[in-house]
């Protein structure tokens, strides 16, 4: 018997160590797991697309010599004062309360230096953010925490949030440990209690009502501000069409990799569609309505590189928006805090308990000592650098495809590495002229 060879212990794919640890955690606590961030599962993404580059039939532009412009104007449909951005990359809405004041300041500094906009989030507008953001989008959320007409008027654009990619159909919860006197005051609630952010707006339901709500917002702000409508990646064709019908100047489309401050893990991982799957239906809706480029499309959810930016634009977006990547640029999940992540039961790159307010990097916290770790000037500079790199990378790819403006990128410049990506992006599988669902096949 001693010499009988044993097979190696075999782990179950179905009951993996991750799965079993979650079962044990659930059995211990009786409550679902809440975390920040977006979907962590592998889903078809921009990595599954490639640019074809120039060839015999089209010629490239000279890097560093021939112009490839990146500017974008958002809000050209109805607003008297559209937003002019130098780059097609904006900073997504993230709340003060979820993020610290210095983190909001850093986002404003970085975005302004790069020539783009930042966005408020649930909890209202802070002076740090308004003061350091040349262009600031003011989110109009179901909770209406901190909502007031003075801030509405001093915003550069208004974003009506209908949904969020991490949790289409869901609200949010800011746990009591992050509700300091300042956060509580802005939200008109007592300190230290969990603050629920509602999943739908309190005074309108459906696109017909939204049209009237948008009318009201325009009347209050003299029709100056571009009105964005943000939707989660659920039913992108119809949601985009209905946002246009309701009068949106800009549609912000957030796929399931888009982050959140805090939501149930089961929600983040199991509701919504990958960003890649959302873009073409949204663009199709705009084209069907004759509104592509008239109503601008901003795509978010898992944008990390200039390649991601370029691919989103090639699929028809006018701009992209980044949230998680911006936080990483500021210093989130930095290896220098590894010892502290381990004390919190996590590790660099995996830390996602943003709702607990114990962020070693001092970004997703209201703890004074932790907040002090983030230098907003330095963090803003890092964000500026990162945005510049994204832009340069995007330009590099656009020039290689012979485009003098990044908006000239088109689906024809792309191929897909997988059947799934080909079907979602509606670009040919590499080496073929076919994608699943293509008419005529």
């Amino acid at each position, binding site marked *: 018997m001693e010499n009988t060879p044993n097979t190696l212990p075999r782990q179950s794919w179905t009951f993996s160590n991750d799965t079993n640890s979650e079962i044990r955690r659930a059995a211990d*606590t*009786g*409550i679902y797991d809440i975390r920040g961030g977006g979907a962590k599962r592998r889903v078809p993404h921009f990595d599954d697309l490639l640019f074809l580059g120039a060839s015999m039939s089209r010629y490239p532009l000279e890097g560093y010599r021939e112009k490839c412009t990146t500017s974008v104007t958002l809000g050209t449909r109805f607003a008297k004062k559209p937003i002019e951005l130098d780059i097609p990359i904006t900073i997504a809405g993230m709340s003060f309360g979820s993020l610290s004041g210095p983190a909001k300041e850093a986002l404003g500094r970085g975005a302004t230096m790069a020539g783009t906009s930042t966005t408020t989030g649930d909890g209202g507008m802070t002076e740090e953010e308004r003061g350091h953001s040349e262009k600031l989008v003011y989110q109009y959320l179901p*909770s*209406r925490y901190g*909502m*007031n*007409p*003075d801030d*509405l008027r001093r915003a550069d654009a208004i974003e009506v949030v209908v949904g969020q990619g991490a949790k289409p159909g869901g609200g949010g*919860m800011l*746990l*009591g440990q992050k509700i300091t006197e300042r956060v509580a005051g802005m*939200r*008109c*609630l*007592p300190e*230290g*209690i*969990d603050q*629920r952010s*509602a999943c739908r707006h*309190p*005074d*309108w339901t459906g696109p017909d*009502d939204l049209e*009237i*709500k948008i*009318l*009201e917002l325009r*009347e*209050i*702000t*003299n*029709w100056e501000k571009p009105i964005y409508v943000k939707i989660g990646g659920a039913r992108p064709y119809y949601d985009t069409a209905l946002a246009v019908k309701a009068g949106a100047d800009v549609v912000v489309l957030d796929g399931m990799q888009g982050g959140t401050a805090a939501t149930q893990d089961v929600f983040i991982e199991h509701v919504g569609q990958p960003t890649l799957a959302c873009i073409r239906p949204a663009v199709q809706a705009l084209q069907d309505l004759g509104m592509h480029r008239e109503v601008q499309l901003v795509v978010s959810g898992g944008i990390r590189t200039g390649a991601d930016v370029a691919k989103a634009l090639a699929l028809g977006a006018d701009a992209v928006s980044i949230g998680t990547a911006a936080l990483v640029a500021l210093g989130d999940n930095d290896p220098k805090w590894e010892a502290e992540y381990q004390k919190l039961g996590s590790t660099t790159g995996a830390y996602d308990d943003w709702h607990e307010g114990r962020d070693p990097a001092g970004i997703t916290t209201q703890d004074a000592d932790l907040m002090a770790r983030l230098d907003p000037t330095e963090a803003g500079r890092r964000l500026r650098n990162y945005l510049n790199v994204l832009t340069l990378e995007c330009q590099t790819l656009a020039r290689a495809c012979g485009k003098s403006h990044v908006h000239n990128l088109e689906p024809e410049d792309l191929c897909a590495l997988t059947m799934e990506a080909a079907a979602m992006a509606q670009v040919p599988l590499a080496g073929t002229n076919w994608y699943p669902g293509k008419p005529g096949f």
Partner: protein
Amino acid sequence: MSTTLDMAQLDLRAVNTSLQAAAKAQANDEFVIENPRGSHAMACGLDGAIRVTVNGSTGYYCAGMNQEAEITVTGSAGPGVAENMMSGIVTIEGDASQYAGATGHGGLLNIKGNASSRCGISMKGIDIVVHGNIGHMSAFMAQKGNLVVLGDAGDALGDSLYEACLFVRGEVKSLGADCIEKEMRPEHIELLTDLLARAGADAQPQEFKRYGSARRLYNFNIDHAGEY
């Protein structure tokens, strides 16, 4: 001096532009709106002490986000009247539709008739007085301020209530999650006396019951999951 703006002649933008300019100038002017024809977003975004009388009924979001202005609607108001009001006084002589005073931060919303469902939803400091009845789910997630109802309240009053105070003179069909009846102490009688006087309501504070939050849902507890 009173200025008449006739919506048979002027569109909504022209009317609101006139009102907003006067409010901004702190001109303390008086306006009368004729033929409102149920227009939406009427007299919204006013930021100053002017007086506006709307002769007729309005659509959605009349007096939205009002600051300081005193607005009276002689007819009834559509959904979301005085939504997110910050200050001032809005009076509805008739009835109000859904979401009256939603998310309001301050000021007084005085509804002489009835209010439909979700009156005072997510209110954040506004005072609302309803001389008639209110519909279901009123004061849902109400955070701060006072809702006074001289008539009856529908189902699930004050569901998931935070720190708003609710005073009802008539019957309450049912209370929502975490909403309970509370003792009327002298300070509440005093508060209610003032609110009733400001609203010109013919009622005695002692006739009311007070409802507020049991505060059991303030911090998530799995043992309370069934109450949501």
